[in-house]
């Protein structure tokens, strides 16, 4: 399959030599499943899902990284959700591999992935209620 960028996502080219990825897109939080399905149809592979806690702006950023198996094509898709109610739809229905990445992001940031089959702590102890990578976390 010769993957191309799906047109439905507003991708902006990025300087690969300086940044390490080729395209970047910012989408609305309710579009993530659509986005994942479109990239899946083009044969992209889910690299990782991660969160970034922008405490000053009161937002949580969720970053989805994808790469392509045949050529150097790496894209990052990002979306921001409010920090006091971090909830976003899961893409584990599209990419089963997203399951663990989302659980990990839930562990670290407390972002709830709606529709996720199992959001119990993944790397933290079973009874953990804290989210250590939040910037206001105190051990």
């Amino acid at each position, binding site marked *: 399959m010769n993957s191309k960028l799906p047109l439905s996502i507003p991708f902006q080219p990025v300087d690969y*030599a*300086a*940044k*390490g*990825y080729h395209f970047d897109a910012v989408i609305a939080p309710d579009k993530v499943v659509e986005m994942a399905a479109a990239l899946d149809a083009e*044969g992209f*592979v*889910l*690299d*990782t899902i*991660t969160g*970034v*806690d922008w405490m000053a702006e009161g937002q949580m950023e969720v*970053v989805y*990284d994808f*790469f*392509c*198996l*045949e*050529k*150097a094509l*790496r894209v*990052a898709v990002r979306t921001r959700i409010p920090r006091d109610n971090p909830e976003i739809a899961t893409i584990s229905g599209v*990419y*089963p*591999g997203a*399951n*663990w*990445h989302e659980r990990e992001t839930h562990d*670290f940031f407390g972002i709830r992935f709606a529709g996720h089959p199992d959001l119990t*702590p*993944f*790397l*933290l*102890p079973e009874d953990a209620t804290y989210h*250590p*990578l939040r910037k206001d976390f105190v051990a």
Partner: protein
Amino acid sequence: MTSAETSPVQAPRETFVLNLGPQHPATHGVLRVKLTMDGEYVVRAEPVCGYIHRMQEKMGENRTYAQFLPNTSRIDYLSAMTYTHAFVGVVERAVKLQVPPRAEFIRVITSELNRISSHLVWWGAFLLDLGGFTPLLYAFDDREKILDLLEGITGSRLTYSYYRIGGLYNDVDEAFLKGTREFVAHMRPRLKMYRDLVTENIIFRKRLIGIGPIGAEMCRKYGATGPVIRGAGVAYDVRKVEPYSVYPEFDFIAPTFPEGDSMARYLVRMEEIAQSLRIIEQALDKLPAGPVMAEKVPRVLKLPAGDYCYAVEAARGRFAVRIVSDGKEIPYRVKLRSPSLSNLSLFEEASRGMLLPDALAMMGSLDLVIPDIDR
């Protein structure tokens, strides 16, 4: 007859839960697998991680770039060189440092030596999973030779921290270059011996061929990389597809085997050792003279605000570092994308309906390093 054919898992009669780990000889560390079993058939295998979670990402957020560097060799301690490579790579990319060519060549040589030593440990441990004890000691015997070479230039046997931002900790000496050539000459006949001794063994072949099939599509859906996806016939190798360092200068292939079973993954790794030897030989021939440290490395590193990625081909697959910087001396967020996590995530689906020993053999063929999963 493969185990999946006769498996009663379609309609399990009576199941019980078997807790494998966190201390179990087959998990090579502290992975725990919650197995729902019907007799000896696996109905559901649910890996439980986090028993060696060491806060690597949190640590990235509270120390400077140079201070975080030693951590990178403790994530996947078997493939420490490549992990450090990814981290120094991302910082160099962000501050636009030009690394001298000699340093890049030495990075390639040491990374490939490290890859061989990692594969040797895997080879021995995998055979141990299958009940053959002796190969482990043969593998460690050869691995000691690599460790001697690397120890001579880095001072460490396992956790090297040899690459520095902008180059290397120090230059290699004559003894290393000579020793590496000798090692390459020594390793080739050993590979043949390994093939005669193990790969051709009938019990071994019967335990691997057709067992634990993982297809290309499953690899894609779960993000599995490295020997796992190459064992499913997809020639995905970061060194080839998204070249970094000076890898484009060398003539080598990313070996693939289309079967997707445990044997294919085994053969991929054995072939990779041969390919790494080729790369090392070429790099030694082409090794340029010159300094091994960039001239102007800022004393205080500050990455411009923004995010930066760098991916390398570690021994277990694609390892990527993503750094989000807000322009300060310490990173705002360090994300480590570990290959073992993605490779293990398909275990639950792939092991369904297998017999316990086959499932464990397949888990061995994924080559897991648990601290790499838990970080």
